[in-house]
């Protein structure tokens, strides 16, 4: 199966800090990929390069064979790549319904706002001002807005960060159900390994801008380098 998104020889540095060093990745349809790594490992940089917020110093990113390098976030969104944010990016003074309607207006979608209200169980909050919502609902709205335009690829930046422990699985269930219904490929950055193990069918681990492991969740999460550099466990190798 041909990759819908691929990165070849991707490199990005900020002064002396290397955030992406020779990244080579390809993602197929039906993938639900967890991107893991410690802070500063390069996960969000990868997302930001794919969505056009950052331009790589070297390398190539293609989506359905088309290069994304040099395109603006707006142009990339129009190609079918959408994202949510670690800190939800909402229209604070508008209601939940109007947040979704703005997304609907921009995408030229029809009746998607109401569909997302239902799919993300946001109906009870429809007339609430976005700036006054609890964090879990803000996260859901952030993702719902990203899905309104019917993207082909959805990038989620820490969808459960800042959410109470007893809410995170409920939020991820809604997000993943909605994504499956939309038939969208999902890449999500996450620090919570329980979430990664439960929802991803592939895991990519980053460390200092490099990919140190890539494969099935059970395999990657057991890899010594991942346990040492990502999860932070003392391994026999490290102890020696």
């Amino acid at each position, binding site marked *: 199966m041909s990759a819908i998104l691929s990165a070849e020889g991707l490199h990005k540095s900020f002064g002396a800090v290397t955030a992406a060093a020779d990244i080579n990745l390809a993602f197929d349809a039906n993938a639900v990929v967890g991107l893991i790594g410690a802070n500063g490992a390069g996960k969000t940089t990868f997302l930001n390069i794919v969505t056009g917020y950052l331009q790589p110093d070297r390398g190539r990113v293609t989506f359905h064979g088309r290069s994304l390098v040099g395109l603006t976030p707006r142009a990339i969104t129009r190609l079918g790549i*959408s994202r949510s944010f670690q800190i939800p*990016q909402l229209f604070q003074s508008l209601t939940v319904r109007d947040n979704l309607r703005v997304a609907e207006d*921009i995408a030229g979608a029809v009746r998607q706002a109401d569909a997302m209200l239902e799919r993300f169980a946001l109906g009870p909050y429809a007339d609430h001002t976005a700036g006054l919502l609890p964090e879990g609902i803000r996260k859901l709205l952030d993702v719902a807005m990203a899905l309104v335009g019917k993207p082909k690829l959805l990038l989620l930046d820490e969808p459960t960060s800042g959410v109470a422990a007893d809410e995170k699985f409920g939020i991820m269930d809604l997000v993943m159900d909605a994504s499956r219904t939309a038939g969208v490929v999902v890449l999500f950055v996450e620090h919570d390994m329980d979430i990664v193990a439960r929802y991803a069918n592939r895991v990519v681990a980053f460390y200092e801008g490099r990919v140190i492991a890539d494969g099935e969740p059970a395999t990657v999460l057991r890899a010594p380098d991942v346990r040492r550099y990502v999860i932070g466990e003392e391994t026999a190798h490290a102890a020696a």
Partner: protein
Amino acid sequence: MIWSVAAALAAAALALAWTAPQWLVFLLTLAIAKGVVVLGLLLLMRTGLVSFGQGLYFGLGAYGAALLGHWGGVADAALMLIAGTLAAAAIAAVLGLLLARYRAIFFAMLSLAFSMILYGTLVKSSALGSTDGFNLHAKTFAGVALAAGSERRVFFAAGILAVAIAAWLLYRLLDSHWGRISAAIRDNELRVDYLGASVYQVVYVNYVIAGALAGLGGSLAALAVGHVDPDVTYWTTSGEFVFIAVLGGTGNVAAPFLSAIIFEGLRTLASQYAPIVWQMSLGLAMLAIIMFLPAGLWSLRRPGRAG
């Protein structure tokens, strides 16, 4: 229903135009001329921008109307209104290409700078009347000769019609997806960009609309006063528009007209009864509004749908 109300208001405005004393007709004409400029400011404020330079387009509208007669020999008031509006819109379409890239204080100061450039140009240009400016005399309206003494009443009636159409169109715009996207830009440009819309394009179009509305206001004011001079572009004129916007609030398209009428009335009374300190009276009024009604006078009305 809405058409019945509109028709009743139009009939009332026309009756007022022909029965009210001349001084009141003049005051109300100036008020609606400034109100329509503030209508444009309201659109910019919905987009998260405050312009301290709408005097530029108010002045372009005034001079555009006046120069049509002065240089072109045209003495038709309707053509003057159109010429002033188009002149302002054309310059806004050019300057907007630059200004739509700026936000916050940079947008405010750049808009102020352009208005002061026009002021300096007018003051130094004898061909444009220099500091004295020049008079304009409209003899017809849409080809119909104006009877002596009726000019201001006709300008007022025409002004009411023009600004009513402008306000209705703006209401529809704000109530449309364009209005929602404008408000979204005010809240979060980054997200609008990531949803796939051009923030620049929306800001640019709103800026040109605001410029055109200010041009309409300027040409109407010039017809009512019968004279133009560089003061119409001075920064204090731009400040008046911001004053009126803050006074009324941005909650409804009717707010700018309500607050413009109050502003003109307040200024007339203050300059009559406290001629030395009339600006202080306005300052105190502004202080009271900011302290007690930060969302403007329109917020006294029951909270409802904006538009």
